[in-house]
């Protein structure tokens, strides 16, 4: 459980899903990340936290190639994301799935059609099989099958997120990005979503990169936590992070919410 302090040097090439070196992000004169190094290991769930404006979502977008960094390299499964932007990226896009904040489902399509989009785009499966696989994914995401034929506007926020997750899982990716998966869900819904992520991660052996603010999620789901502070990133397990003497990290984990979340997770671990 206890990892070395700087996750960056921990592992050899094959175990690393995402490798970031010397990343610099800049909007105008505002520097968001400077010399950021990060390794995400295969099969782990990494939670990314940080205050507002520290560039959590930007980091996610840089990894999936939606935003170009000012400097530095980002490799996903050994391929340089920035260099392969455009045509070559198709290979990578097949191997990752992204869940955006509110699901980002295509509003003109039903849930099943949404899930079928990547299947149509990246495989030559017959339509009947695509429909079957779409239903399997709907069920895997914990949605009732009746939701498959509904439009996003007919679903609740939690269901839209599950549907977005189903679409992200359509191609059986190795790596999945989640942007605030539990934001806007009630505590019961959020806990259920945490369970879902944990179960899927185990049964499909996913690597999960999760941007979140939800301390309960962090405690319940994540193997390691990456904290964005001072334009860098610090990666470690929650218990090790709590020992650090950085003001923001201390406030974050030792604030009333942090303590409560940790207590709950300890209780759950003790019980289970």
């Amino acid at each position, binding site marked *: 459980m206890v990892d070395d302090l700087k996750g960056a040097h921990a592992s050899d090439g094959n175990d690393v899903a995402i490798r970031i070196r010397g990343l610099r992000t800049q909007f105008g004169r505002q520097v968001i990340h400077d010399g950021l190094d990060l390794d995400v290991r*295969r*099969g782990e769930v990494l939670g990314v936290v940080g205050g507002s404006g520290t560039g959590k979502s930007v980091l996610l977008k840089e990894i999936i190639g939606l935003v170009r960094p000012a400097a530095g390299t980002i490799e996903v*499964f050994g391929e340089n994301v920035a260099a392969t932007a455009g045509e070559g990226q198709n290979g990578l896009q097949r191997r990752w799935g992204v869940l955006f904040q509110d699901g980002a489902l295509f*509003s*003109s399509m039903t849930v099943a059609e949404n899930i079928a989009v990547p*299947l149509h785009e990246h*495989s*030559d*499966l*017959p339509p*009947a*099989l695509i429909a*079957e*696989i779409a*239903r*399997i*994914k709907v*069920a*895997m995401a914990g949605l009732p*099958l*009746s939701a*498959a034929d509904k439009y996003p*506007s007919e679903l609740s926020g939690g269901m839209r997120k599950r549907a977005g997750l189903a679409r992200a*899982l359509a*191609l*059986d990716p*190795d790596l999945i990005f989640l942007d605030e998966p539990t934001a806007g869900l009630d505590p019961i819904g959020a806990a259920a979503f945490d369970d879902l992520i944990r179960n899927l991660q185990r*049964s*499909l*052996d996913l690597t999960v990169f999760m941007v979140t603010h939800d301390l309960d999620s962090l405690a319940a789901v994540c193997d390691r936590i990456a904290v964005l502070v001072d334009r860098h990133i610090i990666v470690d397990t929650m218990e090790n992070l709590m020992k650090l003497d950085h003001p923001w990290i201390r406030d974050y984990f030792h604030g009333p919410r942090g303590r409560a979340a940790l207590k709950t997770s300890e209780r759950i671990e003790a019980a289970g």
Partner: protein
Amino acid sequence: MTHRNLAAANGNSPGDFDAELTDESLVLHLAGDWTIDHAGALDARLRGLSVPSAVRRVSLDLGEVEALDTAGAWLVHRTRRELEARGIEVELHGAAGAQRTLIEAVASLPSEGEPEPKRASPLIDLVARTGEATIDLARESVRLVGFFGMLAMKTARVLLQPRRLRLISLAYHIEATGVSAVPIVGLLSFLIGVVLAYQGADQLRQFGAEIFVVDLLGISVLRELGVLMTAIIVAGRSGSAFTAQIGTMKVNQEVDAMQTLGLDPVDVLVLPRAFALMITLPLLVFFADLVALFGGATMSNFVLDISYGQFMRQFQSAVDVGHFWVGMVKAPVFAFTIAMVGCYEGLKVGGSAESVGRLTTASVVRSIFLVIVLDAVFSVLFAVLGI
């Protein structure tokens, strides 16, 4: 861990299977990558698999399977389920731990959807949709008339108590719908005047009656074209903007917030817009009339050798001021209609941003439609009254 990593390592050994038949049992040896890349071919072969009726037992041997994903697991499970449905005993062996877990996971999911709803014949569907659209239209018309009534009441109340009118908002909308529309209205009116003069003169020249192009221009622009064109431009520009603005506020729940604060959305949002448009549209029409006539006069001057002076003299003698008033009288009515439809559609927006776009389109189409219908009504009315 294992099955994914294998998939990554050996990306391309196509999934395959052989059937080995003994008297009562069939063994399917599955091999290679049972992944989404090969699922299409495997699906076709599995669907075409014929199992002799004598076979009582089938065993699926996954020993050689190198990679398995959800699609592959689904194919294995579906094959097993279909065989079992025919009363054949199926057993699964040789699956690696993770593969077995995945197949069991897929098997445990509910996959039987309710049967596809039966589609009615296209003809019945067409009739049903026509009927639905007609009923919708009727309901919508009734609601719009209701909205009109409410708006008329509130307008009357504001006219009686002018202090209720929100002046800042009114001024803002006068600028947005009026001043900013001047360039586009001017340009289009000028061009209409030019085109009309040119086309008219082309015909009239055959009779040597070019000078009557002034009558043609004066009457058609003042009575119909000036006000109609301006109303259509304003419907496209401001009517759509009203729907989009109010619709966005609905999506943001600003309208709900207004109501909880004791503000009446109609007072705050609709009336200033309606009043602003009723002030600006007549002014714009007046401006459009002038510019269109100027366009026609310019064309006449350069192409028809009718000087500006001649044009003015002919205009004064031939075109009665009544034509001008016929056009102007329509302007506030059109303005009220455009504002009413724009705001009504905006207030109809539901929760999603998508409906803002849909209703904005509907608002423009509907207001232009109503403007033209009203114009026809006015024509009939003026004909009856002999104006």
